[in-house]
């Protein structure tokens, strides 16, 4: 697991606590190899925590019904949609976001590299989620067929590519492993 940290100083938002929303809860989450401890409202979604409290905005939000997969991350090595998990449920868990995928020396993760080489992205908004979902898919099954990829990525929507080059990218990354 990479430990690359791209936090910018002052990125953490200073949220005031508001009594009517219930007491805040302290959580400690390991993200991209670094431990973070924050007080969060119990209703805070993990994706909001990652973006707003930790300040890692590479994980995107594309819907509010857990349909699009733009917020996919790895929790304990498995791809999950970070909008389906409360931040408090991630207490003590090990998380990787898109910022943690490339190596410290700047070398892209094989899945990132495959997306680049196969033009698997256009606007790039779904891309972090796609890369996280796809890398998990390849980890689970290195011998993917095209159909496996198409079915395996059904929870991640893309509006630009028509999926053709995304599928090609994932198959290329799978065969490169």
């Amino acid at each position, binding site marked *: 697991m990479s430990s690359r940290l791209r936090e910018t100083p002052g990125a953490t938002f200073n949220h005031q606590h508001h009594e009517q929303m219930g007491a805040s809860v302290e959580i400690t989450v390991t993200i991209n190899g670094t431990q973070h401890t924050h007080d969060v409202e119990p209703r805070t979604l993990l994706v909001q925590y990652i973006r707003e409290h930790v300040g890692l905005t590479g994980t995107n939000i594309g819907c509010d019904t857990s349909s*699009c997969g733009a917020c996919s991350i790895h929790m304990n090595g498995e791809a999950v949609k970070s909008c389906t998990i409360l931040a408090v449920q991630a207490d003590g868990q090990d998380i990787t976001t898109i910022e943690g995928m490339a190596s410290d020396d700047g070398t892209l993760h094989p899945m990132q590299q495959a997306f680049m080489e196969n033009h698997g992205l256009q606007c790039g908004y779904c891309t*972090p989620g796609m890369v996280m979902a796809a890398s998990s898919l390849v980890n689970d099954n290195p011998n993917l067929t095209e159909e496996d990829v198409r079915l395996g990525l059904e929870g991640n929507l893309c509006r630009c590519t028509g999926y053709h080059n995304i599928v090609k990218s994932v198959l290329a990354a799978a065969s490169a492993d």
Partner: protein
Amino acid sequence: MTVIDEKTTQAPSGVIGQRLLRKEDPILLTGEAVFTNDMKVPGALYMAVLRSPYAHAKILSVDTSAAASIPGVAAVYSGADLTDLWTAPMPCAWPVTEDMKNPAHYPIASDTVHYVGDGVAVVLAETDAIAHDAIEAIDVQYEALEAVTDLEDALSDRVVLHEELGTNSSYTWPLLIEEEEGQVQRAFDNAAFSVNERYVQQRLIPMAMEPRAVVAVPQPFGGDMTLYTSTQIPHVLKVMIAVTLGFPEHQLRVVAPAVGGGFGAKLNVYAEELLCLALAQKHGGPVRWNETRSENTMATTQGRGQIQDIELAADTDGKLTAIRVRLIADMGGYLQLLTPGVPILGAFLYGGVYDLPKAYDFSCTGVFTTMTPTDAYRGAGRPEATYAIERAMDALAREVGIDPLELRRRNFIATEKYPYEAFTGLVYDSGDHDKAASIATEMVDYAALREKQVTQNVDGSTKRLGVGVSTYFEMCGLAPSRVLSSLNYSAGGWEAATVRILPTSKVQVVTGTSPHGQGHETAWSMIVADKLGIDPADVDVLHSDTAIAPLGMDTYGSRSLPVGGVAIGMACDQVIEKAKQIAAHQMEASADDLEFAGGVFTVAGSPDKEMPLAAVAFEAFTAHDLPDGLEPNLEAQVTYDPPNFSWPFGTHICVVEVDTETGDVEVLKYVAVDDCGVQVNPLIVEGQVHGGVIQGLAQALFEEATYDSHGNLQTSTMTEYLVPGSGDVPPITLGHSVTPSPTNALGVKGVGEAGTIGSAPAVINAVVDALTGLGVTNVPMPASPLNVWNAMQSAQSNTSSNGGQQ
């Protein structure tokens, strides 16, 4: 035949035509890219908008007191509280007729709401969560009025939506073109064959993956304002804000940070942009807003929404003699920036790629309904037009009793007729329709498919094979300013470019295009690298910030390459011309004797003399020894107004199998042959066609914004609105031909919308073709299992009295 699905194309010797990987990708692949909602803005107040739950209602009262008392809430405003902020209503830049009716539309409603999602109150709060909590605490009393969601019902004026207009009809735009008076009617009277078809273009939700977001950052004492917004049109927006809010244009900077797709839905001036800006000014601090997806489905413009009646007349050979089109176009509750013009843009394409005499009778009526306003969506009027003519051509082929492809071949504009003055007076620059069709038919083995149909689509068969063809023009490169003027469009269609060689020979390109996924940074670098003989990595493309790129007309309508890219090529030529003067001076030669190739000036006849462009750039910078009268530095600025639209064309063929027991459509093969002229980067071209094809296929098979009779959007989330996933769509096989555009020096045409324009009719023609043996002549979009099944049932009940119509 060239198949470019795999990396089989030979890269030409220059940079143009190579499959260069995109320089945009590393920041997008690593999370480093900053989308508007990623911006960290200390002290910003979060805006949330309370939206009407009624499609049509009077606002009786708005009680903001409970919301205002929530800790963390800075302010709560009803629409009535903010009326003083607006110096003019929101802009519609395309008054298509002199008497077009355009209701005053303000960023927030204060009196009457006209669609579910119309804003009625706003909250400013310390966090996004508090802002959303607070809008729940606002108490609005409404008097519900009747909704109108059926276009013909709306046209009847049974319920008038904007009382001050007295009618729901916004405009009727006619276009009658005849060589001799009465020609269209005579053509129909004398037709050997004719068809009269009605098609419905369902409403679509564009669904760019990034919802909209806005951050307005004021400088309270200096007076400047920076507006960051997820838009396709920072330049147009700046002008429109100056007009609408009276904000001094020279103090306004508009920036489009990384933008996560647009597809026409970010080609607008939106209420939230004006609200954030005006409230930031009012509060003297930054105000930001990010759209939820559920807001996006109702507060961002939708696409399509037309009823199309099309009639074709043909002679005994099936050659077209006249076309008549009557459109009813759904405007929605108000006119947004280009709403009325979208169907008009299609008016010029109902003749398809066919040699139609001047016998064309078109009319479009725009009508208000109590639904989200419509506006541009990928293709904007042209996919609708292409759908109608291509569906009607199949219907005509059935009448004539010949293969649909054969009917098309009989009507194609012959290659030797190009440049071809069409019935509309527009000149099509180039085309070879027979070639594109031949490549496509060869790729699918068309003849074999037709034979297979004979054996497969027999009585009792539950898996029926269908083959659908569409041939099309894209009509892009928007647009010659004088043509836009003739269409009453309020702006020009030019594009600006600056090419600047820095002292150390790196190059900055400033473009007025505003990319949001199209790869302009890569493609524009390639044009410059090709012209200047340098490495594309040494070119930086600056865009989407009006402080850096003050001039521009932005990105839409497949215009960026054929207008903006061509402008960059022209600026390069001017830089080379200036550099040549300096190099000639330095080498003591006549500029006329200099040649420039591979980034080096040489002197004809003096092989020992040469001067690289890098050295010229440094000389231009020091200015120690320049020719008399020549200014220092190497920079050129060009504003290019295209002489014509550009006319990419192509053929798509879709092969489907329809399950007659379930109504399920499976796409077995999809072939797209697109001729977009010279391809700057085939990798990017392919990506554009892939994405475009699937967007059109999604209209054909999956997507529809549905409203109930009360005007409630029933597809307000991604769980109800079926944006297809990877498992729902087929791979696409691409072919291409290259017919360079003769109207610009690069020979380019544009490609952004081609896939979408060609694909919906190919898919539906295939579905209908599969079911022709069952008496089916029409299947509505989307061809969902239910719609297909219903079409089969009604065809059956038409042919037998005991049909199973439910």
